[in-house]
């Protein structure tokens, strides 16, 4: 029987675990003495050795990201914590924010100390209203207790944590758009280089880490890199909060080590496909990850390498299960509408192209499209990708391409015959 791990979710089931007294009773802030008696470089080494990879979706090694900070610069270093969780199918960070905010704060203290930063900004999506209130209360409590503030630990280290509230823009989860937003601007991604580690917030070196990455730090510091590596597999160490949603009996967040078989997790943890229906597909890591057919899902495991082998991505671990009743063309419309709406408008291929994809896909669903339209939307996927400042456009074209290729019959069934004049036109072109 599959067992949940309890590294991040240890306090989730405890009543009032977001209160300082309760959190402390259950082990919060116990790493601080150890932390402030360690050298900053040693903390980075522990995180590097733990194999911790960014939990926001890209999976970049956290310790390595930290080591990109330039040395000896006479500028402040900023930490930005990405709590903008907005990718459809992703709802894991919310649990940390609301159930164990002190774990996040403890992680921020560790990260700040390691990268020599004194100012952390938590960028939380605007919709997370109750979560923001809980988090702010926790920050105030920690401040009063002297855990953060002007003089922290035996080194009198200064750490200020400020919550910066987004306002409904998915793109602000992209790290440079997030920085723009904190600076008071529209959330439009920056061209890179320079990378944020060199020139980020207010043109100063900045590290941007996901909530779950930061919340993994206290356990790693407390128990060591080797202990963390005992969870998961070689290329993906530790645990992850998997959010399982869609057509399952028991949707929810489950903390599991990396590397488990995808279907076993869906069946054993989330109770399998609901209403005794058949599986039609699985979106493995949030809406931007290409869908897996039941046959592909049967051989996939929950880690970066296996998902890459299956030509999809691990993403944020947001698993969305699709039962046999789902119309794939309608799903394609739903997703394209999302990405078109969330395009920041900076790059033409994304701003205009996703709009055209949405229009054509809607035309297909309405039964008004022909084979030319279907071929055109498929061609658009290839033409939009890789021609924009950030990957928002690709986050749309990748899953749509997979739907078009893997479930093409379903799209074709909705087409009407080519009008005769168009056929003549096409054959005239060929001649």
């Amino acid at each position, binding site marked *: 029987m599959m067992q949940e791990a309890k590294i991040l979710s240890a306090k989730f089931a405890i009543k009032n675990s977001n209160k300082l007294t309760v959190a402390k009773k259950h082990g919060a802030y116990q790493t601080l003495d150890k932390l402030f008696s360690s050298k900053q470089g040693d903390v980075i080494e522990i995180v590097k050795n733990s194999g911790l990879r960014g939990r926001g979706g890209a999976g970049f090694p956290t310790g390595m990201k930290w080591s990109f900070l330039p040395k000896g610069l006479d500028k402040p270093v900023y930490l930005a914590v990405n709590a903008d*969780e907005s990718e459809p199918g992703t709802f894991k960070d919310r649990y940390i924010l609301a159930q164990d905010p002190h774990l996040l704060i403890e992680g921020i203290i560790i990260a700040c100390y390691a990268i020599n930063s004194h100012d952390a900004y938590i960028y939380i999506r605007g919709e997370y*209203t109750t979560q923001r209130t809980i988090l702010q209360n926790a920050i105030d409590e920690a401040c009063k207790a002297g855990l953060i503030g002007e003089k922290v630990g035996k080194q009198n280290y200064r750490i200020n944590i400020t919550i910066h509230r*987004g306002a*409904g823009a998915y793109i602000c989860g992209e790290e440079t758009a997030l920085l723009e937003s904190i*600076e008071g601007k529209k959330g439009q991604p920056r061209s890179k280089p320079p990378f944020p580690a060199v020139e980020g917030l207010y043109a100063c070196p900045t590290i941007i880490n996901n909530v779950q990455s930061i919340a993994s730090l206290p356990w790693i510091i407390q128990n060591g890199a080797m202990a963390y590596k005992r969870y998961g597999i070689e290329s993906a160490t530790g645990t992850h909060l998997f959010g399982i949603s*869609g057509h399952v009996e028991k949707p929810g967040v489950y903390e599991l080590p990396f590397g488990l078989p995808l279907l076993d997790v869906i069946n054993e943890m989330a109770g399998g496909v609901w209403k005794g229906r058949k599986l039609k597909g699985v979106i493995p890591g949030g*809406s931007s990850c290409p869908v897996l057919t039941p046959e592909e899902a049967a051989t996939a495991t929950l880690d970066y390498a296996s998902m890459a082998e299956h030509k999809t991505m691990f993403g944020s671990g947001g698993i969305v299960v699709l039962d046999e009743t789902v119309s794939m063309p309608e799903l394609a419309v739903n997703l394209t509408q999302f990405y078109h709406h969330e395009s920041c408008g900076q790059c033409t291929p994304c701003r205009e192209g996703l709009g055209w994809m949405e229009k054509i896909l809607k035309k297909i669903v309405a039964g008004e499209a022909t084979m030319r339209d279907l071929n055109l939307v498929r061609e658009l996927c290839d033409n939009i990708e890789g021609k924009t400042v950030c990957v928002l456009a690709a986050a749309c074209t990748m899953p749509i391409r997979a739907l078009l290729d893997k479930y093409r019959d379903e799209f074709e069934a909705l087409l009407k015959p080519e009008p005769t004049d168009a056929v003549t036109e096409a054959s005239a072109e060929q001649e």
Partner: protein
Amino acid sequence: MSDRSKLIATGKPFKFDKKRDTEFEQLVKRYPSRESMVLPALWLVQEQESWVCQEAIGYIADRIGTFASKVYEVATFYSMFNLHPVGKYHICVCRTLSCWLRGKQDIVNYFRDELNLTPGKATEDKKFSLEEVECLGHCGSAPVLQINGEFYENMDVDKVKKLLATFK
């Protein structure tokens, strides 16, 4: 997407109340640049008035020391800022992926059929306004509504009926 380019003037000057004024002055100390206050200030306006009028845009610009066009640009970019008055109960229905898979359309249809309320509109008495929004991050308890900031999870038409009856 609804037109977010037009601002509505109330004809009355805007000013933070005492509570928001204090909050503004506390928050501004947390940033090395005053321009970072654009989003927090817009939120303070919306908390105070439930929407952002044209006068508030100018007021924020003056308080921060920036151009009104900069505040305007930000206010129109971020979809959560209401640029027109909303109902007493502003209902946001998540329209994306998991909520769609688990029946959000039934709820949207209910609003249309029973309350003559469609996305982007308000009821005649201004009690309710409706918006279809993108993923609210509550996919595990889909479909989900957010009303005046409060989340309502695992919803269906029956639950929505009962919930609306509690709103006076």
